[in-house]
Every structure is written in C-alpha cells, then in structure tokens.
C-alpha cells in the first residue's frame, strides 16, 4: 500500500485515537501536576435542627476569584507523585534509614498505600496470568478432543465466566463464599473449623481474588487457543505420530510451538487486564485486605471531596507500570517482526 493511501485509510481511526486516547492522557498528565488553590476560609455561624455552632467554611467569592484567575489550580510539578499517597519518597527514605532489618523496611513500605497496592497488583498479575494461559490451553486441548455433538454445549459452558459481567460474577461468588453461603459452609465442614472465613484473613482474601481472576480469565485464553488449534497442520501431527511421538510429545513439540504467537498475544492482553485488576476488589468487598492501583484511583474519585490530581498521578503511574510490564513482550515481538522483514 502506498504511504498516501495508507494515510487516508488510517485517518479516521487516527483522529478518534487522538481525540479519545491521546488528548485525555495529556489532560491527565497536566492535572497530575496541579493541586487545588489555597482555600480561603472564614469562621461563620451555622445553624440547623440541632442548634447553632461556630464553624469554618470556605469563602465562596474569594475562591471563585482565584479559580477564575487560574482554573487549573496551583502548579505543583511532580510534587503529587512523590507525596505519601503515591511514591512517598520521603517516607521511603525514612523507612530505609530507620530500618532494623530488610523485613522491617518492607513492612514499613507495605504501610504506604501505593506500595501496598503495587504489591497486590503485581502478585495478582504474575500469578493469575500464567495460570490463565495454562488453564486456557488445557481446556482448549480437552474440548478439541470431544465428540462433535458435545463440543457446542461445552464451549458455551466454558465461556460463561467471561460472559458474566465481572462485578456481578464476583458479587455472586462473594455471597457463595460467605460463612453462611454454600462454598463458605462447605469449606468450614471440610476443614472442620466453624470460624473459617474467606473474607477475614488477608491471605485467604488474596487467594479468593486470584482464583476468581483465573476463573474469569481462562475462557478468553481458551477461545484464542481453541481457534489456534483448528489451524494445527494435521500432516505434521500425523508425521509426529508415525515417528512414535506420544500424545504429550505431540502437544509439546508440535502444538505448543504452533500456538506460541497466540500465547504471546494472550499474555499481553492478560498482563494489561490483570494489572488493572479492580472489579473483584469491589465485588468481594476486599478493600480491607487488598487494594490495587485502580482501586486507589476509584477511592480518590469518590467521597465528599474528589481528588482529581491524586487520581491523575496514580493513573500516570499505572500507565508507566503497564509500559514497563509489557516492554519485554513488545521488544520480543518487534525483534520477530524485524527478523521476518529482513
């Protein structure tokens, strides 16, 4: 395709991408570098059904004048990025200087909201992603061997976890794992511990969230691998069989190499998705034991005072995190691409 033709071809989607992806990103970066104006407050007498009281309130007129002057607020540079709610440079330095051991340093680090969120987010990402790929492949291989009459219904049932809205799926499971729910009660019976609660301990909550993540993510990997399996050359498989390859050897040396590009694709998507883990934390009411980068952005954007700049800074940190996480896979894809082109 000529460059010119290509340009006109891509122009509509390029325009949409600039308007809906690039510009909002620029706006987020700008917001993350500003903080609110200094609040001008005055003491007023406030009355209501429960009597009168001297209280402080914001001087609306003076604040409006300040806002009109500079609508973005005060420029704060990278200040928000390094405050306690984010990278917490000062607190980390203090923790390092005052550490009694490396474990002590990490427990102090874990007390800071962003690092706590990163700890969960990374653990979740690196445990759930490989499990999703393995489980997805196993289901695809299993379904591929089924009799044609059973394939349709099995595929439908296997896809259900992906079809169910994440928030609803996690809510349903949340009720089932309740101490009074079917899974919760069964676990109490199996472990013979009437006090066992999946919601109370941080470790069990993490395990629950990750099991949910695998349950929800596996169908996606399955669909992709199943499609890939239909293109495995039957001649190569037959040749392998004639050479005396066992079923496992066929999978290991013929099927998996053939599916490798798809595995890269699935891991890219899953890494991105899992790094943004959010719905299960809300659905499982797990905020006490687990927080992710997305859930702390959500917390900033709710409540009586909305903290746009703090949320913007966390968003930028998330984007940088996704970029770092994906870079090995992207570099590999780029090398393959160049290798083919030459």
């Amino acid at each position, binding site marked *: 395709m000529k460059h010119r033709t290509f340009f006109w071809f891509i122009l509509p989607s390029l325009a949409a991408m600039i308007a809906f992806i690039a510009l909002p990103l620029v706006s987020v970066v700008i917001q993350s570098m500003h903080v609110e104006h200094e609040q001008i407050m005055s003491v007023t007498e*406030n009355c209501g*059904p429960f*009597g009168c009281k001297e209280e*402080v309130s914001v001087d*609306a007129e003076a604040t409006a004048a300040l806002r009109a002057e500079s609508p973005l607020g005060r420029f704060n540079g990278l200040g928000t990025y390094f405050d306690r709610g984010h990278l917490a440079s000062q607190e980390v330095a203090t923790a390092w200087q005052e550490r009694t051991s490396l474990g002590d340093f990490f427990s102090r680090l874990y*007390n800071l909201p962003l690092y706590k969120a990163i700890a969960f987010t990374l653990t979740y990402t690196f445990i759930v992603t490989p499990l999703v790929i393995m489980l997805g492949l196993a289901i695809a291989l299993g379904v591929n061997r089924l009799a044609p009459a059973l394939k349709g219904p099995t595929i439908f049932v296997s896809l259900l976890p992906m079809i169910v809205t994440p928030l609803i799926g996690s809510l349903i499971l949340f009720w089932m794992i309740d*101490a009074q729910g079917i899974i919760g009660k069964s676990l109490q019976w199996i472990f013979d511990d009437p006090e066992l609660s999946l919601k109370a301990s941080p470790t069990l909550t993490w395990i629950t969230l990750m099991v949910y993540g695998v349950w929800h993510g596996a169908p996606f990997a399955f669909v992709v691998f199943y499609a890939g399996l239909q293109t495995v050359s039957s001649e190569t498989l037959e040749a392998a069989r004639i050479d005396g390859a066992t079923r496992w050897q066929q999978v290991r040396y013929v099927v998996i190499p053939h599916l490798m590009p798809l595995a890269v694709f699935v891991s890219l998507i899953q890494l991105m998705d899992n790094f943004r883990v959010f719905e299960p934390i809300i659905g499982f009411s797990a*905020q006490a*034991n687990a927080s992710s980068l997305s859930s702390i952005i959500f*917390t900033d954007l709710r409540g009586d005072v909305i903290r746009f700049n703090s949320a913007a800074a966390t968003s930028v940190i998330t984007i940088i995190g996704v970029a770092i996480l994906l870079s090995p896979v992207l570099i590999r894809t780029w090398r393959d691409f160049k290798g083919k082109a030459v």
Partner: protein
Amino acid sequence: MYLKNLAVAGALAVTSSAAYAGCGLSGGNVNILANEFGAIQAMVAGARECAGDGVTVEANLTVDHRDIQVAALTANPAQYTSAVVANSSIVPLINGDLIRPLDDLVAEHGQDLDKTQLITIDGKVMAVAFMANAQHLFYRKDILEEAGVDVPTTYDEVLAAAEKIRSMGLMEHPFAMNTKTGWNLGEEFINMYMGTGAPFFEPGTANVAVNNEHGVAALNMLKSLVEYSNPDFLTFDSNETQARWESGDLALAVMWGSRGGSILDDEGSSGDIVDATVLAPAPTLTGDNVASTLWWDGFTISKNISDEDAEATFVSLVNGISDDVIRANNDKAVWLSSAYEPTPASAGVAATAASGTSPYPMLPYMGLLHTAAGGELSEFLQGSESAEQALADIEAAYTTAAREQGFVE
C-alpha cells in the same frame, strides 16, 4: 430536645397543604438528585404532585448521588435543579459555590417551614432539613434478659453485656456495627472519637488533632467491640448489619436510625425478633460524651439555573414535605415536622438527640479526615498494627490530602 421543641413549635403553626397541579406555579422544570431510601422516595412523590400546567418534575434517586452531585451542579445550566444532601455532603456544594441562598424563596413560599428546619451558614439559608438521623444502639431485650444484664448506656457496658452473652453460650458474635472499610468505618471512628469529647482539629486550623490519647482510647474501644463481631466485620455495611439483625444473629448493634423502620416492619424477619428489638440511645464513651453524631437530610437548590426553575423546585420540594406526605409516611423517617408522630422506630434517634449528641461537623475538610480514617484502620482492627501507628497513618493520609486540596500549608 430539639425534636421536642420542634414538635411544639410546629404544632402552633397553621398548615395548609392542598396539592393541586402546578402548585400555583406558572411553569418551570424541576429535576431532583437524591439518595434512595423510603423517606426520600416519599418526598419526591410529594414533589411530583406539582407537575402539570407547564411544570415538569423529574428525579434521579441513586445511592451514588454524592459522587455525581458536584459535577452535575457545576455544569451551567446545572443538570439538576436540586440536590438532596446531608450534613457532610452539603460541604462540597458550598465549597464549590454551587447552591444558592434560599432566603427569598423561604420568605415567599416557606411559611409552613419551622425555623429549625433552615440550615443557615453565615446567616444565609442554604438548605431545608426534613429528617434527622443518627447511629444508635439496637438491642434484643429477650437475649439481654436471658443474660441478666441491663440495657447498656456506655460502651464499657456494651462490652460487658457482649462478654456475658458470649460466656453464657447464647451467641458467639453478639455485636455488630457498620465497619466496612471505607466510608462506613470512617464514620464509626468519627462517632467513637466524638465520645472522647476531644476536638478533631487544632482550634482555628485545618491541622488534624486525633493522633493523641483520645484517638488511642477511641481505637481501643472499636477494637474491643469488633472482637465480639463476626470475623467478616470489615465487609459490614448497613445492608449487611440489618440482614444479620433480622436473621437473629445479633443481640447488640449500632446501626443507623433510618434502618429502624425497615427492621421493625413485618418483612425480612420473624415476629419474635421484631417484638424483642428495642431502639435505644447511642452509648457514651467517656463521661457524658455520646459516641455518635447527629445527621440531617435536607434539600438545596442549584445556583446555575434560572430563577423560575429555582422557584418551581423550591415549591415542589416544600410540597414534598407537606403535612399530608409526612402523615402518610410517618414510619419511614424521623421527620422534622409538626405533623410527625413519634414511633418506636424513631425512639433511638430522638433519645440520641435528647442526650446532647453533637451534629456531624460541617467543616470543609471533614470529608478528608473521614476518608483517611476509613482507609487506614483495617490493619489495626485486624490486629496487625498498633493504635499509635494507625493514628499516625490517618494523620499522614489526611495531611497529604489536605495539602493537595489547599487546606493546610
């Protein structure tokens, strides 16, 4: 006390509330943003009676109202002509200068309103309150009798009663409060800290002052209480505690008064439990300091709308809290009106108000402290952090947020 005064004052007022289409208005658009529960549904239904003759009345009732109100009222013209708020959620609307003073409208159309219903800030009426709410004690008199304990009036007595119930094998987890991480847990901390009688902030500044022995006392009491709670307590919101109460799992609970009506109705529970449920004032922590806060719900009128719409909105909403509406929905709330007849469901809130409880502070930076407390207490309550560390974390989280919002240097 105030509620009683209000009833007396209101009884003297002459009331007329014949509803007719348009409510005497020549036109205007009304669009209400509000929380969703029975009392507000009743009020909005009353406001809708004014629709017709060129007046339109629409409403969006959602539990997420607090999260959208600032954006919706910042638009010009505003998306909603009225936001129904509480003591805490009116603050961001005032901070952002998004609601209009109502003095003119009150003078013209508010003859039926009682003076104590008017929320005035710096002498200007900014909202009209229509109901009161507070967290207070719910107890099961059958269980307390069986355990042989009196009705607790202090939190130490609550602990003693819970211990007695547990040791007698009546219930393993007799107590609950709304301790879900986030807003609910923050509210419990603020209520408990109120019970110490100490101020939240250094006088005259926005510097937080909870990192002290009062904070430790409040936290230790919360920790002792949740030890009598089901281990899942960090996931308990109002719906969860109400469900556990109605299924008979609890003997003592601190819940919102606004839940009283639905707990005492004939749905969701058995007759024995309902008959044995009594609503009592909130317990005290130290001395006479009640560990609770008083709340009001009221309506505001947007600034960025036409005067015609503002008038239509005010008249419709006043019609929504007319005596007829309140008489027909008496059980749904503790209404701030002369037409309201106290019921067993309102006994808790009325007694809590009468015992000298302070209202929730209407400070511009209170919400930041509330959020900080709600997010930083889970580990302490789970036993993996000391009270001092939890308070230091609250202080640090609050200060970071307050600095960012321009409240402290």
